[in-house]
């Protein structure tokens, strides 16, 4: 019998070419960083059980679960609001995988493992907000979209979870995008088209920003 070795690959394995893209004679205005190999679990409260879920989440993560569009950072995970009575748990290094979370929330919620079902793209740089304004009607100005703000929205007719992570060390805002794996390449090219005029610096990372 044939032996198969299953190796997980990023949905952007082909499309992402690390390095420079677009305008070359300027300092890159947009930097795109794909984060690979993360755990992502969708948690949805059963009907009428949000209070139970919120309390179990507080016990498990040590922070309150988001009940409005926000991304809440715990010491080892990000809890990202994804809709009424539901949120995503994003983490690295096997700290919050499907099995233990299923145990923790078995009384109050239904869970679904999305670890290999989404691509995670971090958008930053001096022109990040200008570039995203071409693609999204969400107001990303820091006064209304501070660190931790989140939105479930669409970019180029593609559903995304968008949230603002911690600023980069140089003070630039970071906008994180979670997109369905099979739409990742399409969205990636849309973003490259929008960002090309500002000069783009492309990379991938193993660590969450």
């Amino acid at each position: 019998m044939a032996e198969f070795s299953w190796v997980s690959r990023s949905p952007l394995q082909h499309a992402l070419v690390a390095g420079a893209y677009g305008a070359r004679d300027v300092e890159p205005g947009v930097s795109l960083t794909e984060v690979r190999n993360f755990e992502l679990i969708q948690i949805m409260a059963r009907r009428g059980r949000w209070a139970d879920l919120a309390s179990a989440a507080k016990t498990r993560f040590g922070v309150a679960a988001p009940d409005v569009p926000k991304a809440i950072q715990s010491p080892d995970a990000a809890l990202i609001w994804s809709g009424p009575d539901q949120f995503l748990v994003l983490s690295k290094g096997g700290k919050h995988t499907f099995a233990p979370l299923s145990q923790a929330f078995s009384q109050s919620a239904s869970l679904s493992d999305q670890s290999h079902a989404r691509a995670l793209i971090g958008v930053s740089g001096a022109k990040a907000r200008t570039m995203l304004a071409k693609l999204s009607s969400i107001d990303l100005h820091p006064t209304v979209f501070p660190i931790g703000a989140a939105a479930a929205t669409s970019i180029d007719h593609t559903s995304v979870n968008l949230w603002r992570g911690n600023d980069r060390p140089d003070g630039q805002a970071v906008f994180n995008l979670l997109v369905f794996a099979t739409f990742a390449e399409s969205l990636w090219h849309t973003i490259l088209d929008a960002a090309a005029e500002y000069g783009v610096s492309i990379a991938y990372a193993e660590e969450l920003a």
Partner: protein
Amino acid sequence: MRIVCPFCGERELGEFTYLGDAKPVRPAAGASEDEVFDYVYLRDNVAGETSEHWYHGGGCRAWLKIARNTLTHEISSVEPAAGVGAAKVGA
């Protein structure tokens, strides 16, 4: 046109899908054929205030019940449809 989603805030029309009239109520199991026919097929073509179901598929994926004036497109209320975001309904 923009819709203020009770969960997400103000969003553009493109994120929403129109389902239809929110008024018809499913008849009881023993209802007559006429009643079922009315429920399935017959809709009023209202010029004025209507109650409609919309779906925020491009956002939080909640079903919404919206009161809209078909003459002015003015939206007077947006609320979660029954069973959606149970924690927030009636809050």
